[in-house]
């Protein structure tokens, strides 16, 4: 991010207004669409975790299994959640087992910015892995900034909400002289999660219904992170991060009609990772950086069910994943507007499973993945051109059985952004990207279902759009508008086909064609003496059709993809007070053949409001989520909570 500004700072002089929000400019100039929420904006979104924020991005399909502890994933423009990379301070998170990152595990309390990039983030000085997804959700934590006057910063907060939700959290940051800086962020979340919901025994609201209560849905979790930064000199620095996440939760499972017995499924997970980052901005022309990371994830799934007759009705599955990762990137300025970069990454994954019932023939796979990427960027006031070529290779090994074949792929992308008019920030942009998705260990090695010969999926993304940033209208303190039309095609899609009722097999058979439109607007209007009306809205049109040859659903919308979706927010800021309203809506979704009406899931609109104020060190925020008590489901048979409340009290600990 800092790099973009270095190159662009020459050009901001040409704009007539003095202050242009750097983030808005970045969004308007991006050749590959990017959406950004800053810490201040996140505070107005009725959000308690990353998925709550992601719901306000355009072009996303959220899968939320309900409650605080339910699994939450994000999919971009109809491609599937495994194409969404999640980057945490420059390093990608990974899950080699399912390929999906559960976004519920991140705390918002130490987040400074959340951004979503289609294709990849526009900065070419990044690890090769950042180029290897269909899109990237970037989480940036609060920087250890030594420019400020204060040497100590801290915030303590306490959230309480419906269904027994308690969330104490602490953030402290301290600088020691000019060289050392540390921060510590820790929080815990506890909830019993027992919300009531309205269950219809059929797919129509005319059918019989009952008000039931979600059970076995408690969660206790703790997150801790410590960061240290050492500035060797003004060009070089080393940052070290260690993060721990632990939780225990009940899994209520999907709703089964007429079966009100409590689910006995429990999930305990612990993830620890540590990463180190060395950065050297040698000169105006040359810089390099290195990353190293170690990640350990331990999941324990248990269930009590009389179907496990040989083990006294008890099931215990333990999954342990390890990853070792290293990366090196270099950027060189060839000419004033032309930058080139090269980066290379290597990482190792393994998976160990211990179960008292299943996985007796588990292969214990390990995978080595190597990436090499070259990129170029041509950047002037009016024209941005970008291109990269990513080379991927994988080598797999197994302790027993046969390993998946080695893979290698070449994946290019090109992008362009052109400022059409001399004196207005009105740009046209386009990009093309080809990317793959490697099969996960579940796809390849899961008992009875895995298929070792699965090939990677292939995706081609095309995008064309316009952005407009207006900064000359006096009463508008901000105005950014963008509209993008896109076409994605996914081939060799890994899908499960049934052999019989309980036995499915993974195969590369699917084809999906997605055409759509993403519209985004952010507009801040000055009111009164110093008040501000902040508005944002987005709308997505996604026509994602099954193009699998011979499929019974050929030409129909793929499951869980609404054709229309969007969100809107408005808030009013007056001195220390702010009050606002947020709305997200999703149109109708289908979960199977469209000729069968029972496969239809109704659309929904969820409205939420908040009011906040601060007094000296203290800040209070009160929220009502789902104001009109709407009962809805994001994933079928996983009812979401209805109207609920939350209050946050926080204290600034700084001097």
């Amino acid at each position, binding site marked *: 991010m800092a790099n973009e500004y270095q190159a662009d700072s020459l050009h901001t002089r040409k704009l007539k207004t003095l202050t242009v929000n750097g983030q808005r400019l970045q969004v308007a100039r991006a050749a590959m669409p990017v959406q950004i929420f800053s810490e201040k904006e996140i505070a107005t979104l009725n959000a308690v975790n990353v998925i709550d924020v992601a719901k306000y991005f355009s072009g996303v399909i959220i899968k939320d299994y309900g409650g605080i502890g339910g699994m939450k994933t994000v999919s971009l423009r109809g491609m599937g959640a495994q194409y969404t990379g999640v980057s945490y301070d420059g390093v990608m998170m990974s899950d080699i087992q399912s390929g999906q990152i559960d976004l519920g595990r991140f705390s918002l309390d130490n987040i400074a910015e959340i951004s979503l990039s289609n294709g990849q983030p526009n900065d070419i000085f990044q690890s090769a892995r950042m180029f290897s997804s269909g899109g990237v959700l970037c989480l940036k934590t609060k920087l250890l900034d030594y420019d400020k006057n204060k040497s100590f910063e801290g915030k303590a907060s306490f959230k309480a909400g419906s269904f027994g939700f308690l969330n104490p959290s602490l953030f402290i940051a301290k600088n020691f002289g000019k060289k050392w800086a540390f921060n510590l962020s820790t929080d815990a979340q506890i909830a019993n999660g027992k919300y009531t919901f309205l269950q219809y025994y*059929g797919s129509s609201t005319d059918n019989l219904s009952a008000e039931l209560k979600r059970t076995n849905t408690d969660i206790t979790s703790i997150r801790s992170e410590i960061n240290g930064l050492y500035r060797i000199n003004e060009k070089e620095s080393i940052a070290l991060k260690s993060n721990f996440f632990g939780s225990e939760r009940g899994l209520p499972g999907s709703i089964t009609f007429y079966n009100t017995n409590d689910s006995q499924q429990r999930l305990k997970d612990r993830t620890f990772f540590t990463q180190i980052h060395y950065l050297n901005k040698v000169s105006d022309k040359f810089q390099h950086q290195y990353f190293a990371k170690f990640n350990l994830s331990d999941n324990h799934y248990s269930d009590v069910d009389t179907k496990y007759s040989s083990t006294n009705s008890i099931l215990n599955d333990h999954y342990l994943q390890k990853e070792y990762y290293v990366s090196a990137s270099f950027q060189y300025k060839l000419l004033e507007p032309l930058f080139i970069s090269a980066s290379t990454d290597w990482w190792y994954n393994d998976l160990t499973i211990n179960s008292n019932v299943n996985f007796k023939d588990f292969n214990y796979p390990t995978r080595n993945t190597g990436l090499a990427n070259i990129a170029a960027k041509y950047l002037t006031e009016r024209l941005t051109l970008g291109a990269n070529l990513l080379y991927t290779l994988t080598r797999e090994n197994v302790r027993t059985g046969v390993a998946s074949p080695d893979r290698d792929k070449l994946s290019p992308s090109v992008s362009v952004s052109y400022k059409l008019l001399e004196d207005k920030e009105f740009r046209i942009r386009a990009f093309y990207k080809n990317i793959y998705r490697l099969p996960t260990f579940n796809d390849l090695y899961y008992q009875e279902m895995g298929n070792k010969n699965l090939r990677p999926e292939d995706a081609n993304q095309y995008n064309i759009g316009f952005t407009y940033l207006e900064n000359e209208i006096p009463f508008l303190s901000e105005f950014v508008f963008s509209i993008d039309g896109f076409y994605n095609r996914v081939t060799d899609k890994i899908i499960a086909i049934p052999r019989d009722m309980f036995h499915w097999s993974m195969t590369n058979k699917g084809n999906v064609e997605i055409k759509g439109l993403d519209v985004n607007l952010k507009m801040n209007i000055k009111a009164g003496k110093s008040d501000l009306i902040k508005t944002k809205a987005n709308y997505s049109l996604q026509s994602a059709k099954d193009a699998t040859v011979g499929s019974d659903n050929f030409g129909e919308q793929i499951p869980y993809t609404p054709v229309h979706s969007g969100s809107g927010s408005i808030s009013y800021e007056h001195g220390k007070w702010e009050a606002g309203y947020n709305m997200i809506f999703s149109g109708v979704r289908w979960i199977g053949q469209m000729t069968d009406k029972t496969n239809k899931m109704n659309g929904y609109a969820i409205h939420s409001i908040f009011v906040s104020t601060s007094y000296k060190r203290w800040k209070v925020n009160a929220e009502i989520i789902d104001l009109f008590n709407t009962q809805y489901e994001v994933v079928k048979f996983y009812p979401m909570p209805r109207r609920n409340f939350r209050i946050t009290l926080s204290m600034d600990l700084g001097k």
Partner: protein
Amino acid sequence: MKTTKIITTLLLTALYAPIFISCNSKNEVEKVSTPSSPRSLTAANGKVYIVQYDGHVTQLDTTNLSLGQTITVGANPDASVIVNNKLYVVNTGGMATVKDSTISVIDLSTFKETKKIKVNLNPADIKADSYGDLYVVSNGNYGSIPGKFQRIEATTDRVTDIAVAVKNFDIVGDNAYISNFEYDATWAAANKTLAIYDVKNEKLVNANIITTEIIKTPYCIDVNPVTKDIYLGVTDYINNGKMYCFKQDGTYKFEFTTGLNPSKTVFSKDNNSLIVLNEGKYEANNAGLNLYNLTTSTNTENYFLLKNNRGLGDTGQDMIRYGSKIYIAVYKSSIVEVINANTGVTIKTIPMVTLTDKVTK
């Protein structure tokens, strides 16, 4: 700074305290009701016998629709059949590492398990002929141990292999109607046959009586005991299935669309109509019924939903008609639904549960 230190300490304590509280629960044993998951139904002497996947068989009185005695059989029982006042239950050992291979025999006068008969690995289905012989289809381990079709002789309980490949079958009169197929490289069904096996003379009469093309994968077969018409249900496990009707000699009669995974056909007393049970998909809450009127050739889809304004539940496993009522075992919903055989309107929904010890940690 001092305030900060106090707040920090308090907060850190508040943060970590819940961890200790939650870890500190006692180990106590309390009784909790767990779903017993009904799998199959048979009826005799005014009682319906409900076989449940957690290893129990329970009596249901058909006059007052109250549950009676429960006994324990083998591991994960599935199909069942009554012949000569004995109830035979297949024990599949479903989730066990070593699958069961026995048939439990229950004397209906005493309602006690008298013995277990050992058969091939992983028995799935069982039917009886009018001579007291039992026929069992087993699936093996889908690998080194193949499935088999076996006969258990009436009085001797001797088990013999029959060299006929069987996926689903039904016995009416002296004929066993056998549906079979093989999987091709893409897990599609190929070589679909409908064979006739003579149970009296104990030999294969015709390897395949069907000439019409059958789409998708055969899933169930039921033969009308009066008209001898053969009903073959097919599925692709994802979308609505189909029911084919053939005459006794294999001539195609008609077909109609069913719900997802048609698994059983039950005939009305006057043979003017039939009801198909659609299993639905596990955890999709889409079990259902079709009503097919043979006189008017009309197919009523979602019949149960239409008549009762609610879904049938999750995974409809078995259905029988006994007297003027139809009984349906809905496996994942863990209920037995009792409906009026003529109107399709529900009479009673019986939850099937077992009280077990729950260990809390």
